């Protein structure tokens, strides 16, 4: 955001009572001074400009903001960023690249696992964690463990197909 001369500077990001916090995101460290109210989701998007992680419900119900903290999937909207210092945070930006897609990204393309795409980053980060969690072979077990990710376009059938493809279950 740019400010014209005379604008009141935005102080919300670095308040007087800010908490020094080092966030380690996709392997890069960021020394920040954070308002304790800032969520990890808002900090990723608004402060670090990593906008791949999306805000849906902002209450832990939709899964669009799913990221990994120390390798585990969590809802970034319910994490206060000051509590995430010195932990390994992974977002969709760190999962693959245009030149080298993560297998799940390639599978979502192959199986058309989205329509509008808004939930996709959360779906893929959630699925990337699922690959390392106890999960049975069946589609139903994948659906159960992906129930924290809502797709308003209803691409569920193709999302499950993409995940099962990567798991070698179809």
């Amino acid at each position, binding site marked *: 955001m740019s400010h014209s001369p005379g604008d009141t500077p935005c102080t919300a990001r670095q308040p007087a*009572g800010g908490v020094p916090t080092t966030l380690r995101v996709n392997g890069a460290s960021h020394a920040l001074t954070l308002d*304790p109210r800032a969520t990890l989701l808002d900090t990723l998007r608004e402060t670090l400009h990593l906008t791949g992680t999306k805000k849906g419900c902002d*209450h*832990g119900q939709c899964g669009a903001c799913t990221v990994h903290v120390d390798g585990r999937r*969590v*809802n970034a909207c*319910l994490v206060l960023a*000051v*509590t995430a210092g010195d932990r390994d945070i992974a977002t969709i930006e760190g999962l693959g690249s245009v030149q080298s897609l993560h297998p799940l990204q390639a599978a979502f393309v192959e199986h058309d696992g989205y329509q509008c795409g808004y939930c996709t980053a959360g779906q893929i980060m959630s699925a990337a964690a699922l690959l390392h969690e106890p999960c049975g072979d069946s589609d139903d077990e994948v659906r159960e463990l992906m*129930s924290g990710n809502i797709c308003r376009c209803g691409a569920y059938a193709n999302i499950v197909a993409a995940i099962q493809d990567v798991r070698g279950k179809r």
Partner: protein
Amino acid sequence: MHSFQYTRAADIEEALRLAAPPSEPGRQVRFLAGGTTLVDLMKLDVETPAHVIDINGLGLDQIEVLPDGGARIGALVRNADLARHAHIAAQYPVLSQALLAGASAQLRNMATTSGNLLQRTRCVYFRDRAARCNKRDPGSGCDAIGGHNRNLAVLGASEHCIATNPSDMNVALMALQATVHVQGPDGGRAIALRDFYLLPGDTPQRETVLRPGELITHVGLPPCAPGTRSCYVKLRDRASYEFALASAAVVLRVQDARIVAAGIALGGVGTRPWHCPRAEQVLVGQAPSAAQYQQAARAALQDAVAQSENGFKIELARRCLVHTLSTALPPQ
């Protein structure tokens, strides 16, 4: 979200010191564990603590298997880790099943044992500051009575509050006779979970017997005697990621083809995780039979009172309990 002071406590002593009364009157202090309830409610300005004490660094994240086969579960053990723990899954399947029936994979990775115990008993009106709610704003009234109450309590409600305790884990812990261990300004104490939750009465803002400044440190589980079977069944409007319309946790010990001990609790129907001593009494000493299970279910729901939209939950809870008993121990 209201402004608050944030402090990360290094150890239990520091957490207790920071939370100790007396502070300024009305100055609310909250311990922050997984944040899945607290941060959500802070965003809604329903919770407005002046001071948030982060307890994630206290090291209370271990599950200890005791020499007698019981377990000591640290307050900060995540729900996902508790559900998947080998000893818990083998000895207390009712607890693993209940945990895995709750919330989503993401939330189970965040939510903690003590946070789940203390998640608010709540309804949509509690979350909506435009509505009247005696729990959020004592004395203001209850918009749930006569309002949208399809999913609210049929057991333990008062004229002041009919909100349901939404936990699955707490229902299993109730059936398992868990004990809550706390530390506070006056030292430590152990509270039977069955004595831990309060009925709403005319003070629905008070949900537990915890005193100001007390911190849950761990939860104790008694050993499961040989011949114990347990099971959790949850009925809901959709197959996953939804609160219970009715759920049941059952722990039965069988000896010589008779039930010699029973732990029974219901979820989704009570203003607290609902212990059912009368249903237990019906079963103890009896051979497992369909008729006994029906009688136990009638006893469990004997005092149920329907609101305008939730009468169906009374029969649903009865059938849920019969099904859960039959799954844990098929009737002869």
